C-alpha cells in the first residue's frame, strides 16, 4: 500500500493549504462564541466603546454574571429545562419502546395499519397540532405548567419508527429464549429488549434532549413569566424585559444557558455526532 508521506513526489502544499483554510474557517465559525464570552467579561463602558480588543482592558469582570443572577432566576430556568427534557424523554421511551417492539417482533392483526399510522405521523411537523393543543390546554387550565410543556412531546412517532427498525435487527432467538424462561412480553421488553436497545436509545435521547432543550416555539406559546420558563424562553424574556441594551449581562446569560449542552457535547462528542447522524432524518 502506498504511504503518501513516504512518496517523495507528493506535494505537501495542497494539504497544508487545506489545513490552513479549515483553521481559518473554523475560527470564523467560532466568532460568535469568542465575542459572546469576551463581551460577557467586559464592563459596559468598554463594550460601548466598540473596541476590537478581545481581552478586557481592565482584566475582566464577573459583574455581568452577578447581574444576571441578581435579575433572573437562572437556576430556575436551568432546572425547568432539566425537568422538561427528562420528563419528555421518560414518556417518549415509555410509550415508544413497547410499541416499537410489538411492531417489530409480534404478529397481530392490524400491525401494518398501525405502522402506516406511524409513518403518517412522521410527516406532520409539531407546529401543526400546536393551535388545537394550546386551546385544549388553556381550557384545562394547564398554561404555565410543566404538564403543558411536556405533554405534547410525550408521543414521538419518530422514536417508535427508530426503535422498530432497530428491534427488527435483533435476533428472534433472544426473545424465544426469554419466553421459554417464562417471561411475559412486558418483562421481555424492559429486561431483554431495552438493554439491547441502548445504542438506539442513546442516539434517540441525544436527539430528543437537544431538540427540546433548544426549542423556543412551544414554550413561548404556553408559558408566560419566569416560574416555568425554559432556558430558551428565559434568554428571550431577559432580553426583552430586563436587559435592554445591557449587552454584558445578555452575553453572560447566553453563556450560562448555552454551556450545559455544549459541555455535554464536548465530553461525549462521538456519541453526539453518531446520535445526530442516525436520527438525522427527523431533523
Amino acid at each position, binding site marked *: 500500500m502506498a504511504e503518501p508521506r513516504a512518496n517523495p513526489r507528493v506535494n505537501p502544499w495542497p494539504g497544508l493549504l*487545506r*489545513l490552513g483554510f*479549515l483553521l481559518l474557517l*473554523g475560527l470564523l465559525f*467560532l*466568532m*460568535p*462564541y469568542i465575542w459572546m464570552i469576551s*463581551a460577557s467579561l467586559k464592563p459596559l463602558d468598554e463594550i460601548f466603546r*466598540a473596541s*476590537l480588543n478581545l481581552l478586557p482592558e481592565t482584566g475582566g469582570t464577573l459583574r455581568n454574571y452577578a447581574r444576571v443572577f441578581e435579575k433572573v432566576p437562572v437556576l430556575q430556568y436551568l432546572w425547568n429545562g432539566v425537568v422538561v427534557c427528562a420528563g419528555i424523554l421518560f414518556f417518549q421511551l415509555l*410509550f415508544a419502546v413497547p*410499541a416499537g417492539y410489538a*411492531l417489530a417482533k*409480534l*404478529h*397481530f*392483526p392490524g*400491525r401494518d395499519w398501525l405502522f402506516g399510522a406511524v409513518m403518517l*405521523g412522521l*410527516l*406532520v*411537523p409539531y*407546529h*401543526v*397540532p*400546536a*393551535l*388545537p393543543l394550546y*386551546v*385544549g390546554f*388553556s381550557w384545562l387550565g394547564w398554561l404555565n405548567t410543566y404538564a403543558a410543556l411536556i405533554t405534547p412531546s*410525550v*408521543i414521538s412517532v419518530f422514536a417508535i419508527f427508530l426503535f422498530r427498525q432497530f428491534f427488527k435487527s435483533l435476533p428472534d432467538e433472544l426473545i424465544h429464549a426469554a419466553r*421459554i424462561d417464562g417471561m*411475559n*412480553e*412486558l418483562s421481555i421488553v424492559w429486561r431483554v429488549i431495552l438493554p439491547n436497545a441502548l445504542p438506539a436509545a442513546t442516539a434517540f435521547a441525544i436527539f430528543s434532549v*437537544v431538540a427540546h432543550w433548544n426549542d*423556543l*416555539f412551544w414554550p*413561548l*406559546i404556553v408559558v408566560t413569566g419566569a416560574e416555568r420558563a425554559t*432556558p*430558551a*424562553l428565559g*434568554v428571550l424574556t431577559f*432580553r426583552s424585559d430586563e436587559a435592554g441594551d445591557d*449587552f454584558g449581562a445578555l*452575553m453572560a446569560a*447566553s*453563556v450560562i444557558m448555552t454551556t450545559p*449542552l*455544549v459541555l455535554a*457535547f464536548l465530553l461525549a*462528542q462521538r456519541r*453526539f*455526532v453518531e446520535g*445526530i447522524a442516525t436520527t438525522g432524518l427527523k*431533523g
Partner: protein
Amino acid sequence: MSEAATLPRARSGASGEAMAAALLCLPAMLAYLLLLLLPTAAAVLLAFTDYELGAPSLRWIGLENFQELTEDRGFLVSLRNTIIYVGIVAPASIVGALALALMIEAATRGKALFRAVFFLPVVSLPVAMATAWQYLLHPTIGPLNAFLAQMGIAGPAWLTSSDTVLLSLAFIGIWEAIGFNLVLFLAGLTAIPRELHQAAEVDGVKSAWERFRLVTWPLLGPTTLFVVTITMIRSVRVFDSVAVLTQGGPNRASEVLLYTMYTEGFTFFRLGYSAAITLVFLVIVLALMLLQTRVLDKRVHYG
C-alpha cells in the same frame, strides 16, 4: 422455570400474542390519537372556520381564510421571504457542508477537532446564539462593523435595515445548518469504500475533481438527496432567530411563515386564520417530502 407460566402461553398461541401486542401498543396509540391525530385534524378543520380564541362560537366559512390569504399583503410577503430564506440557506449550507466534508475527510490531522467546531452551533441554544449574533452584528457597538470601520467601510445596520435583514438571518441560518449537514455527509463519505478511489486512480482518472465526479458524487447520491430534503424542511421552519432578533421587522422585511402563524394565532388570537397559514406550511413540508420519495428517489440510487 415454571411449567405453569409457559403453559397458558403455549395454549393461547396467536391470540395471546395479539393481546400482548395490544397492551404494548395501547399507551402509544392513546397518546398518538389525543396529542397528534386529533389536534392535527382539528387544525385542518379550524382552517375553514372563523374561530377566534375566547369567541363564544365559531362558524364554518369554507375557503374564506384561504381567499383572505391570497389578498393579505403581510402573508404574501411572509411566504416570499420564507422562499428567499430557504433559497439562500439550503443551497449554501448543502454545498458548503459537502465541500467541508470532503476537505475534512481528506485532512491528515484534526478531523475530530474540525468536526466538533463546525458542529458546535447544532447543540448551542439558538436563542442565546441569536443574541450573540445580535451583538456581533450591532450597527454601532458590534465587532463586525468596528472591524469594517477600520478598513474604511461603513457597515450597514445588518438586522435593522430592511435591505440586509433577511440576508443576515439567512447567514445565521447557514451557520446553524452547516454542521448538521456536515455530519450527514461525513457519514455518507465513510460508507464509500476506499478501494473505489484507488481503482479509479489505477484506471487513469488522475485529477481529484474527476474522481469526485465519477466516484464520490454518484455514490453520495442518496445522502445528498436526503440532506437536500431535510435542509429545506428545516429551513422552512425558521422561527427562533426571527422571534429573537427582528419580530418580523423592520416593516415585515423578515416576516416568515411560522412567525406569521405565531402572531396571527397567539398575538391576535385569530386561530382560524392562523390554522390556514399552518395548513399552507404543512402542504409545503409534505410537497418537499413527496419530492424526495417520488420524483428523485429513482434517479439517485446508483446501479
